[in-house]
């Protein structure tokens, strides 16, 4: 099993406090993602984006959530045998937990290098697999946690603060 932690500089205290106090989310949203279901990919991130617009989240933050969430959704669609997207909306942040069963990520550090891709030919033919998924998620996220077992499951947690 491999683990990856990242917290944006200056966000450490807030991220730690959130993880320690484990507050209850006000709104939760759940979506299941089908393997290679490229036709419906984007539904979860679209709904989550709409919810954040409705609660009045700043537009620049919204853009970051949209990009990170969409990338995560595409990752599951392209690589896994299916998975779940679970969004927890709090008054000051959004936490998105993506779980899937599938190949798992062998070397997470390597996947963080822009351009590195493990996508199959099928996925590349669909126009995905440029190797920018995880780097893009990281770029737009305040705190990121990934846990993966080769041949088993992958959990990806994204935290983005509104301010």
């Amino acid at each position, binding site marked *: 099993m491999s683990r990856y932690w990242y917290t944006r500089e200056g966000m450490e205290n807030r991220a730690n406090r959130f993880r320690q106090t484990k507050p209850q989310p*006000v*709104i939760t949203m759940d979506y299941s993602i089908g393997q290679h279901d490229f036709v419906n990919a*984007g539904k979860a*991130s*679209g709904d989550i*984006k*709409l*919810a954040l*617009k*409705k*609660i*009045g*989240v700043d*537009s*620049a933050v*919204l*853009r970051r959530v*949209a*990009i990170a969430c*969409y990338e995560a959704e595409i990752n599951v669609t392209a690589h896994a045998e299916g998975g779940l997207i679970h969004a927890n*909306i709090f*008054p*000051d942040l959004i936490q998105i937990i993506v779980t899937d069963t599938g190949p798992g990520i062998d070397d997470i550090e390597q996947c963080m290098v822009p351009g590195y891709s493990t996508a199959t030919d099928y996925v590349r033919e669909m126009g995905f697999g440029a190797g920018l998924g995880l780097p*893009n998620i990281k770029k737009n996220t305040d705190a990121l946690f990934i846990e993966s077992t080769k041949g088993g499951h992958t959990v990806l947690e994204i935290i983005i603060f*509104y301010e």
Partner: protein
Amino acid sequence: MSKKTYFHAIKLIPEKCTGCTKCVRVCPTEALRLRNKVVELDASRCIDCGKCVAACSFGAIETYADDLQVIGKFAYKLAIISTSFAGQFGDGISYETAKRGLLHMGFDAVASEAMVTEMMGLMIREYVSNHPHIKPILSSNCPSIVRLIQVRFPSLLPNLLHIEAPMSVLATYFRNKICSEQKLDSSEVGIFLIVPCVSQVTAVHQPEGTYVHLEDGAISIGDVYQYVMANIKEIQADTTPMEVYPKGLSWAISGVEAEEVNDGSIRTMDVSGVHNVIDILHNIENNQLGVYDYIVLNSCANGCVGGVLNVENPFVAISRIRHLMRNATHKDFHDQLFIDLYRQDRFNVIPLEPRPIMALDDNIKNALTKMKQINEILEKLPGLDCCACGCPSCSALAEDIVAGKAELDDCIVRMRRLKETNRGE
């Protein structure tokens, strides 16, 4: 939320409204509701796309454009015609004749949007190459789309091309030219746009991002058509030569601008129809279209020929414009004053402010509480989006209930089902 009052070039006529809800269902920003059997408009949400005008079968949504009389108070009057104007007249009436009709209406000179579209292409290419970090740049020609981005996609405001639309660029150019050539003060020069849609009327009366006063009014293409047809003999007998720029006319047609801006070094796309545009804007928000440099967005299907103030069917108009372009010789517009104004950034637009309408409350905590209430109400609603309550969708009704503007009992489907269940017991 915003207390600003918004001008709109549409007017609801309650006496004619039958409460059919067709307009409520087509509105892309959910700005219309049926309340007390009559349709109501939320002015802060409306983007003047004109979809409701086209949808209404009862004449209960009227368009507004300026009356010709408004030109009377100016010493010098210039008309600037939209490219779609050329597609409105039948084969017996030449484009020159149609254009000359405006002189008969009382204008001192007539300019056309088509004159400047080639220059616009150069300006857009330069803008794209000066902003390589913004991908894609979004066109700003269509006032409805600019407003759509302000209300529903404020995160994409930095992507807008910050250059005025061609007709406003021309207004700036001609205001300078006429004032110096005719020795007139700017207040004595009246500049009027001859427009294909209500959003252009709104843009003249309540412009977004302009540094200075540009236009003095917007007259509907339909009204000019009416005048030309009624006075056709007299106008045809007149032989005053009129300048035309046939190549630039194509900008009225969706699919052309993106091709003309594209010199092979960039990637461009044209999108038309407000619902297609909304899809594309969602994709851009997710960074799915980052390979594109410039995307042209038009609210009306097929481009400006689809505007509600036109007279002719858009496909007939397209075919006429293409015919005109094929059979005419191309003419260049090259002018030092125009280039000087451009180099002095006089065609630029002030960065636009968002007009957020989506937020349920100014305070995020309150908004979250409201969203929770909305979700609870949604579970009680049938999810048919039938519009019988007067709201465009069940989620819109749930939002209205939480906002205190509607009641759960407004849903007649739910009422009926409850009644059936009670009877069953």
